[in-house]
């Protein structure tokens, strides 16, 4: 029976990889293609998770909702809510250099964390929201996990194709132009803050969707479900290691980092308790060090961004 447990674990890991891949693709739109520093990924993730939870869970006393709506309404709602949070932040901060956005997104993630922890009527604070329906969740355990994996993979595929298409379009070219030479892009008449706002909102909506998929997978969401700094930072290292500006790299980075992260957790859980706690922080130290090493020795990541050089038009006969 060993291999069934192993297969179950692999499916579980694959679902997480797909969810993180959505976050990584969202960050790639913001950082990879537009150069925006979002340090509040966990905040948008949490907004998505809680929005979908409130919309789809059955009615409960003492808190808003639940409204018992179908899951897809919750997922769309999660994207809209994350986008609505991103809009004012981006509106204020994107006129300036990305440093200001970094600080403001740290702030917004912190405020979101405070609201989730202390507002009983909205999020049921520490107890969290339970009974979140999972699509096809009535099947037996293994089938249900596989079905959910199929759903998140399908969503990831659709998102990937849409982002690829968007990036290959004139819009994508314009975004890279803004990222690489803001002044030149502005001189060409591009509305730089507005375009950045588009990318920021688009990416944040994907992070919200990732949060919603996470909440439905766990069937519950509590303030402790994710460590905000670690979650945000993991997505960053995934994207940088995989290759920012390259969507396949973004997904590859997720798989590599998530496998390392999970396996190291299995290893450290074997330690006696007093060391296990310390080992948890050692892992965080090493993931931070990994970022420094990637930035130093392979800043372009495993799969670098396509250079965008094209054959001269005359020679291809077009």
């Amino acid at each position, binding site marked *: 029976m060993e291999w069934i447990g192993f297969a179950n674990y692999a499916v579980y890991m694959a679902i997480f990889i797909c969810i993180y891949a959505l976050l990584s693709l969202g960050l790639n739109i913001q950082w990879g293609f537009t150069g925006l520093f979002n340090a509040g990924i966990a905040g948008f993730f949490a907004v998505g998770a809680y929005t979908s939870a409130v919309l789809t869970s059955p009615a409960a006393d003492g808190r808003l909702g639940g409204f018992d709506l179908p899951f897809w309404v919750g997922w769309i709602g999660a994207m809209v809510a994350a986008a609505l949070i991103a809009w004012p932040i981006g509106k*204020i901060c994107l006129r300036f250099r*990305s440093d200001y956005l970094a600080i403001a997104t740290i702030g917004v993630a912190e405020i979101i964390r405070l609201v989730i922890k202390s507002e009983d009527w909205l999020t049921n604070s520490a107890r969290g929201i339970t009974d979140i329906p999972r699509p096809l969740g009535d099947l037996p355990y293994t089938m249900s996990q596989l079905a959910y994996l199929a759903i998140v993979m399908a969503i990831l595929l659709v998102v990937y194709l849409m982002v690829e298409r968007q990036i290959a379009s004139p819009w994508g070219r314009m975004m890279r132009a803004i990222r690489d030479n803001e002044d030149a892009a502005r001189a060409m008449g591009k509305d730089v803050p507005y375009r950045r706002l588009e990318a920021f909102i688009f990416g944040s909506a994907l992070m919200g969707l990732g949060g919603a998929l996470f909440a439905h997978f766990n069937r519950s969401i509590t303030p402790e479900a994710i460590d905000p700094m670690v979650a945000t930072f993991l997505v960053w290292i995934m994207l940088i290691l995989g290759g920012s500006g390259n969507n396949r790299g973004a997904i590859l980075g997720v798989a590599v980092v998530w496998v390392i992260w999970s396996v190291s957790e299995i290893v450290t859980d074997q330690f006696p308790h007093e060391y296990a706690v310390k080992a948890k922080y050692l892992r*965080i130290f090493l993931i931070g060090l990994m970022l420094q090493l990637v930035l130093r020795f392979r800043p372009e990541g495993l799969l670098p961004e396509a250079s965008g050089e094209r054959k001269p038009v005359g020679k291809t006969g077009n």
Partner: protein
Amino acid sequence: MGALEIINFYLVPGLVVGSIYALGAVGITLVFAILRYAHLAHGDLATLGAFLGLGLVTALGISPYLALPAVMVLTAVVAVGIDRVFYDYLRERPKIVTVMASLGIALMVRAIVQVVWGVDSQTYTRGIVRPENWFGIRVRDRELITILAMIALVVALQLFLQRSKWGKAMRAMSDNPDLALLSGVDNGKVVTITWVIVGGLCAAAGLFLGLNFELKAMMGWSMLLPMFAAAILGGVGRVEGAVIGGLIVGVAEEMSTLFLPTEYKAATAFAILLLMLLVRPTGLLRGKVL
């Protein structure tokens, strides 16, 4: 509620915590203006300073005030070391890459603190200190010392920046790094001096935070937002602005508990930050906007 109560329960604690923010915000404003990036590891460097102080206090049995100079030197060395090992080679790359590296450093420094000192709250001294009564205004000695030490450190820094050769070089590099380089300013040395000052100020902020409240691994990180709010409120690059900004943010946070639940103290700093970026991004004293 009488004026005395407002002063005792809101103004004095606000000024104390504001002085701590000011010490941090001065460092942030220097890094922002001279090195031109937002240093996100600033809070965690302060945490490290506070815990290094705890190490000295418990190992040597000295008072935290005596440990302060040593801790400032130690943290300055750590700050210079971090710059040499991690930030220096990113200097030619877009500055935002260094911001990202500093986020990683923040996690690494905090992880070290958590491994070495554990995750439980600690204090420098045990027991409750009763506040002294000065004509109805109640102030603890440590609170008075925090405010006075902040003023002394900032005055010393201002004298250094205005009068000394290296202080002038720092200001020149802040105004125009290329021109400073052409005029014979050794940029590398200026960077090192900046980190020495920033590291020392960070340590002082952390130590006074630990002295007035308690030592926790997250203490510095939760101070990051108010410190940045203070730096931007005062005007990036303006040392006296960072002090004013720190005091305003500190007092505003304490006052906010009159209208808002205490949990949302941190939201005050965030609101100030967004408001300043919206209406006057140069800050009160006309600083830089990067």
